[in-house]
């Protein structure tokens, strides 16, 4: 049941996601054509976008517990959990938010986050380590097509729990007891209303609303084994997902013991504007499709399960923060029986509708973002379920799918680093049958992709390795239903790296130089493209490159350097040979380039990435061809 548990708390506040934006364009990875203007604040990829100086820090800001529930009731007001803040680390650096790849920017992950519950006196009552997680189900929540309008969800777990003095909170004692078997908590939060105005105090901040509950044994970390409502995109939309029924993908869990259904609408209801209240979609009625046709309802009628009044979710401006969008519907025995194996649906005013697939089946990889080195074995668990229960004994197909990736090069449109090739480097099984636990395994020992994304037909250093997409789907047609296009497994497979010995600066220079180009924040410490400065800062660099990727201090902050390259750098820093002088050609001046006129492309961030997806490019290409 994860965070959708009778024992759970909700919290609300802000987040900081101070990502850097120079690396948002694959063309900026070409050292040979990089220009200093690409590091400057400014619109479009011929400049450094909206935050070139970002340091990747991710913080929880001013988050407070807004409500807590235990066994169907709100916890008493004197429970200290209600005075708690939800904070991040207080004695180490902040977490980092990083993209997987410039050509897969739609699964940004949080690394190195520590989450704390802090009482009114500043005392830490709980400290836990957040397992790195990527966002999912990004969509256009508010009107508009820029990142300001977007919303996405992060679901993960907190481990290594350290509990403080819980004498003032029966709720937290109960949460501790429930989480004890696994030593793990489930945490989910929704992020929206991102601010991109550099003059605002909220620059690079947004709204964050979430929930924490126990994570029980055998529960996956990043998804719910539950009921999944499937939305459909507006036809022809090439921007953030815009559900035709106005409600985004959302999960629910039925608790037969507590006789209720938990519906998480936290990332599903639109708002009237960024950071605004939820939009009035009319009273939302939850029902289950009666599979038995009757003379009066030949296609099956809806058995009502409950309703959420518009006056509650849209009329009460505190509702979203107080509940994180989680709605609890009490079910009687008849409703429980009806809902057990028939599709749920939620409807509201005119045109407002979302429902489960007719089959009730759904699947997703728990951990859908992977960074891999050649020779590495990977086993990825794909959880299949039907009517909220693990679905054993069914065949799951795996297919390479690059449609959601975002190959692009605006600097030189004739030199776009291709994605998804060579496919031979990811020899995955084309299908797998789910076990008793409903899990199908996608397994492979990955090979070496070579350097397919070097620029100039392989002559110029470029983007390391290759990025791939693999989509899982049910083999049986009767289990198939609506497809969530953003829902696939993303793999960054690094190139092998066996430099000629002795290793010198000449070999490593392109790596350091690219890093210096893409992350102007490093100029506050050193010029990473300068041999003397790198050597002078060797101790600091050894520290940063030697840390585990989940350490918030690890370099590169982007986590996009292969272990092989990091090891080579570490070895070289011990004896930093310079080698022969490097001949550097002067890049052309920047005035030749001007930002493209396309507003959508110029917005930057996820909005631009969305518009670059291969599936959109192919659609646009096809449309352009049609008239002729």
């Amino acid at each position, binding site marked *: 049941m994860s965070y959708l548990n009778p024992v759970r708390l909700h919290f609300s506040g802000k987040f900081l996601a101070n990502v850097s934006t120079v690396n948002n364009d694959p063309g900026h990875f070409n050292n040979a054509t990089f220009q200093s203007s690409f590091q400057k604040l400014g619109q479009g990829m011929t400049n450094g976008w909206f935050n070139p100086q970002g340091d990747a820090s991710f913080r929880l800001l001013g988050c407070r517990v807004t409500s807590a529930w235990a066994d169907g009731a709100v916890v008493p007001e004197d429970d200290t959990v209600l005075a708690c803040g939800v904070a991040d680390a207080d004695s*180490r650096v902040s977490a980092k938010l990083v993209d997987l790849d410039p050509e897969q920017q739609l699964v940004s992950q949080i690394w190195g986050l520590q989450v704390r519950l802090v009482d009114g006196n500043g005392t830490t009552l709980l400290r836990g380590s957040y397992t790195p997680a990527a966002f999912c189900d990004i969509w256009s929540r508010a009107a508009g097509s820029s990142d300001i309008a977007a919303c996405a969800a992060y679901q993960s777990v907190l481990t290594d729990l350290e509990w403080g003095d819980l004498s003032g909170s029966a709720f937290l004692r109960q949460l501790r007891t429930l989480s004890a078997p696994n030593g793990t908590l489930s945490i989910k939060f929704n992020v929206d209303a991102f601010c991109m105005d550099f*003059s605002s105090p909220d620059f690079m901040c947004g709204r964050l609303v979430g929930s924490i509950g126990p994570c029980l044994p055998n529960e996956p970390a990043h998804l719910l084994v539950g009921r999944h409502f499937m939305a459909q995109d507006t036809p022809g939309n090439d921007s953030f997902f815009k559900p035709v029924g106005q409600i985004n993908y959302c999960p629910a869990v039925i608790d037969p013991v507590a006789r209720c259904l938990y519906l998480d609408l936290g990332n599903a209801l639109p708002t009237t504007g960024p950071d605004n209240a939820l939009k009035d979609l009319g009273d939302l009625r939850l029902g289950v499709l009666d599979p038995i046709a009757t003379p009066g309802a030949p296609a099956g009628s809806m058995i009502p399960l409950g309703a959420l009044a518009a006056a509650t979710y849209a009329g009460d401006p505190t509702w979203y923060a107080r509940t994180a969008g989680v709605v609890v519907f009490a079910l009687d025995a008849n409703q429980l029986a009806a809902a057990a194996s028939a599709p749920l649906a939620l409807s509201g005013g005119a045109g407002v509708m979302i429902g489960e697939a007719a089959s009730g089946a759904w699947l997703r990889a728990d951990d859908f973002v992977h960074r891999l080195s050649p020779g590495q074995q990977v086993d990825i668990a794909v959880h299949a379920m039907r009517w909220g229960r693990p679905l054993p004994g069914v065949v799951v197909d795996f297919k390479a799918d690059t449609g959601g990736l975002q190959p692009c090069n605006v600097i030189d449109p004739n030199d776009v680093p291709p994605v998804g090739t060579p496919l031979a480097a990811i020899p995955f099984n084309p299908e797998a049958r789910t076990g008793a636990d409903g899990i199908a395994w996608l397994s492979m020992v990955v090979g070496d992709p070579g350097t397919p994304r070097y620029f100039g037909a392989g002559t110029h250093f470029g983007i390391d390795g290759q990025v791939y997409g693999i989509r899982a789907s049910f083999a049986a047609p009767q289990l198939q239903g609506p497809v969530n296009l953003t829902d696939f497994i993303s793999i960054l497979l690094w190139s092998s790296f066996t430099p000629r010995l002795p290793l010198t600066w000449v070999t490593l220079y392109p790596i350091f130089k690219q890093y210096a180009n893409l992350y102007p924040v490093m100029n506050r410490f050193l010029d990473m493209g300068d041999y003397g400065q790198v050597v002078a800062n060797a101790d600091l660099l050894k520290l940063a490159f030697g840390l585990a990727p989940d350490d918030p201090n690890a370099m590169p902050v982007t986590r996009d350097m292969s272990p092989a390259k990091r090891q080579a750098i570490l070895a070289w820093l011990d004896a930093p040979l310079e080698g022969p002088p490097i001949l550097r050609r002067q890049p052309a001046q920047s005035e030749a380039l001007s930002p493209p006129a396309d507003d959508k492309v110029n917005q930057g961030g996820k909005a631009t990435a969305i518009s670059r997806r291969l599936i959109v490019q192919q659609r646009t290409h096809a449309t352009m061809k049609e008239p002729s």
Partner: protein
Amino acid sequence: MIRLNRRVLEQLDPQAPDVAGVCTTLQYAIELEHATIPVYLYALYSLDVARNPQIVEIIESVVFEEMLHMTLAANVLNALGGTPAIGQPGFIPAYPGPLPGGVESELTVSLRPFSMEQLALFLAIEQPENPHIYHSCSDDLDADKPITIGQFYTAISVALGQLGDAAFVRPPRHQVGPELMTNAVVVTDVASAQKALAIIIDQGEGTSTSPLEVTGGGYAHYYRFMQIQKQHYLVYDPHVGPGEKAYSYSGLPIEFDAGGVYPVPSDPSAAGYPAGSQQRVLCDRFNYSYTALLRALDAFLGGDNTGRQMDVAIGLMMSLKSQAKAMMSGIPDPGRFTGPSFEYRGSDPAGER
């Protein structure tokens, strides 16, 4: 020159000092060593490194040694069974104000962008007493007169000698050694404790016979700063005199480009920035990181003397540097320059907006 109020030594009984009294005095020492760091860092990060690289290098080198001094004082305190108290609100002095234990009428320290006037403050902080004072302590301990920092450490050193080796905890306790920090001294007895304190004196003031440090190999802080004022590096110069006099400020020129200083305010405070403003947000965020660093150091110098915890602290130092250099140079909003106030902030920086 800093003169400390004699009350900083009131816990040291000149005849029969006890361990508790020495520990209290060493805690004072840690606070004093820390107190100059924000002052130096504020000036350091106000400088555009591209336009004032030499001055940046000089100030940075002094800051590194002030951190070493904090660690050395903490090593002595730990060796006596005490525990440094760093991660708490009262640890940070208020700026502007006297240094901890300082005589208020003599020297007020401020957070100011770099200028030749601020450099004069640095020189005043680091100015050595007449060399003969290094040799003695009790001779000059006039009951009413303020004391110098050299005298302060010498008094502790004498008290340690009186306590004897038996006062030191065995096995060595919570020591940060040279494997973690260059020039750190593991304190196990009177001799090693006195060696640790001697490094603090020598690096701050120079030895009695030379501007050179015995440990570290550079010039003492006072002479390093004086190079900036004299606009030339200090070099060995046998033509000007024998022995300790064989030095002159006649090396390569050091240029101060006054245009390469960001226009940040003097003595900023978080409360001084308008509530809800970007400057307030950036200042609060910096202070939260600064407080996190003090907590990390509290753990590091309080028993978690591991390489891992040292890395945690270094990570926070780098984060502070990054934040300070950004906010002071007009990032993210060009033209809006924000000075970090180095105040204690235990809660995350958005709760009060």
